[in-house]
């Protein structure tokens, strides 16, 4: 795997399709994301973008086609297996562990990284203390990256909106993924917050050497940070390629961007 790490895409979708009743929500989508790439998935509302995420992460089973992670077929696996294989995500409508503290949200993300059993935990054996200490430090470091170090003990639901988005990204990164999926991270943010988020996403990519696939409506953000794009329309690919070229494509302009 290591010798062809450069040409095996991190994520590859082959003829990926799903039908809900008669509706072809996603129809024959092909896509390749190189390691380290910041890839954008855009398109009008209802185009099928979130559905693509749900198929990649195992929430929905595709009716046809396949999902490859580093060349390995992961189609139809459960969300837990897919996360363990190396894909983490955020959600369009934020899904935090609302009643838990900010720190515990990230520690829940570190669940599989925390190596002690339930019995070792209840008996407070040495491994409990060692692992809790390690995981605590790791969680704090991650929260610092996102500027949440002052909110560690807040209840997640009480955070302002922008910080909730950041916490969700921190929690996803806690699972140590190879590929990060962000579903409309800038939704509901003001221009300042969006600009800050752009910086954070760039930083995450550099710091963690991360490959990122992101869904977004904010064209400034998309053209600012995405290197490649796929435009979806009615579940089908409308255009694909380098960001600048795609955004100039007349098909894209008429169907999505408008004059």
């Amino acid at each position, binding site marked *: 795997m290591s010798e062809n790490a450069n040409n095996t895409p991190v994520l590859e979708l082959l003829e990926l399709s799903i039908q809900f009743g008669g509706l072809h929500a996603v129809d024959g989508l092909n896509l390749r994301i190189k390691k380290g790439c910041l890839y954008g998935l855009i398109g009008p509302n209802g185009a099928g973008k979130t559905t693509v995420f749900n198929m990649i*992460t195992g*929430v929905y089973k595709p009716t046809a086609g396949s999902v490859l992670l580093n060349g390995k077929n992961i189609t139809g696996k*459960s*969300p*837990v297996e897919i*996360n*363990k294989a190396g894909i*983490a*995500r955020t*959600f369009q409508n934020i*899904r*935090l*562990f*609302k*009643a*838990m503290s900010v720190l*515990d949200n990230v*520690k*829940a*993300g570190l*669940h*599989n990284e*925390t190596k*002690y059993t*339930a019995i070792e*935990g*209840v*008996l*407070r054996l040495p491994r*409990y203390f060692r*692992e809790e200490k390690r995981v605590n430090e790791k969680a704090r470091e991650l929260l610092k990256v996102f500027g949440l170090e002052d909110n560690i*003990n807040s209840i997640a639901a009480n955070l302002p909106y922008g910080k909730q988005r950041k916490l969700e990204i921190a*929690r*996803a990164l*806690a*699972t140590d993924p190879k590929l990060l999926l962000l579903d409309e991270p800038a939704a509901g943010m003001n221009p300042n917050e969006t600009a800050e988020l752009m910086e954070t996403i760039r930083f995450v990519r550099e710091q963690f050497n991360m490959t990122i696939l992101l869904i977004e409506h904010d064209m400034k953000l998309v053209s600012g940070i995405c290197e490649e794009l796929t435009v979806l329309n009615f579940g089908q690919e409308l255009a694909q390629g380098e960001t600048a070229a795609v955004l100039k494509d007349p098909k894209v302009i008429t169907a999505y961007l408008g004059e």
Partner: protein
Amino acid sequence: MRKQTKNNLITFSGTAVLCFLMAGLSTAGVLDNKTTGLLVPMGIYIILAISLNLTVGILGELSLGHAGFMCIGAYVSGAFSLIFQNTISPVWLRFALAVIFGGIMAAVFGVLIGIPVLRLRGDYLAIVTLGFGEIMKSIANNVYLTMDKNGLHFGFTVPPTNVDEATKQELLKGPIGMAAPQDTNVWIVAVVLLICLAVLMLFIDSRSGRACMAVRDNYIAAQSVGINVTKYRLMAFTLSAAIAGVAGGLYSHSLSLLAAKKFDYNLSILILVFVVLGGLGSLRGSIIATIILYALPELFLRGAGNLRMLLYAIVLVFMMLWTNAPFFIALREKIAASKPVMKLKSVFRRDKSDKSAGGAA
């Protein structure tokens, strides 16, 4: 110290002081008979309430059959004690084995009904546990167990017939129930209660407890970070059932005669009321609510005659408001932030006296 560790220490030491104080007072003969008689069942109800809080408050699943697990623990451990009454000694060993065995059997049933049901989402668990509790009660109500020189004889709905009349001992007597040896006392209940409380606190404040709460708050997000939702649902549900079984074991050894009809859904609902009014997810709240709501009608409302149920209902409504209504939550925060309380807190902080703070909390 972490806030949760501190909170747990306060709750635990407060409960320990209260438990041993009451046990000591009753042993010393300071309390009247009626109050003493209430202590054992009250302790058992506290164990039931904190264990149910794991399912309802921490896991976020509604269970309406907690009495069913208690019933299994009560019958299994009671039968165990009766069967080995003359073969295992000393008594404390036989009793300990009986209670542990009752807890294990309740856990086994927790797994058996948890596996099919916890895969589903929504209100399935509430419905299935409600039915489960009633079924357990009916089975216990119809089971006969007789021992003679040839061994054990079972009967269902009718007593076994082929028994040796000269040496027969009727252990389980259908609707009449059973008379397990009365091995439970206030000290044993106090110790078991504290062990159960500690186990629950340590479980909740660990990787597994976090996983359960993550599943409760958002199971899709929990899956997305690699938490095996079914595993943790089953784990918490089983632990909750096991502790209810232990409580049942204490219960059956505290009565001269125990009939299965005690374990009907009214009991499950009563415990659920303690949990909900004490605050979901708060073990301390469950303990306080159980004490207030259990002692109140027995000790203080006796004299109120016909008004008793009315007063009880008023207390219930008030407690519900106290734990849930925005006005009262704001009021509580205001009280906590008020000058006298802050002063009190700073005094205790200087003394580092957790115990006195536990009494106040």
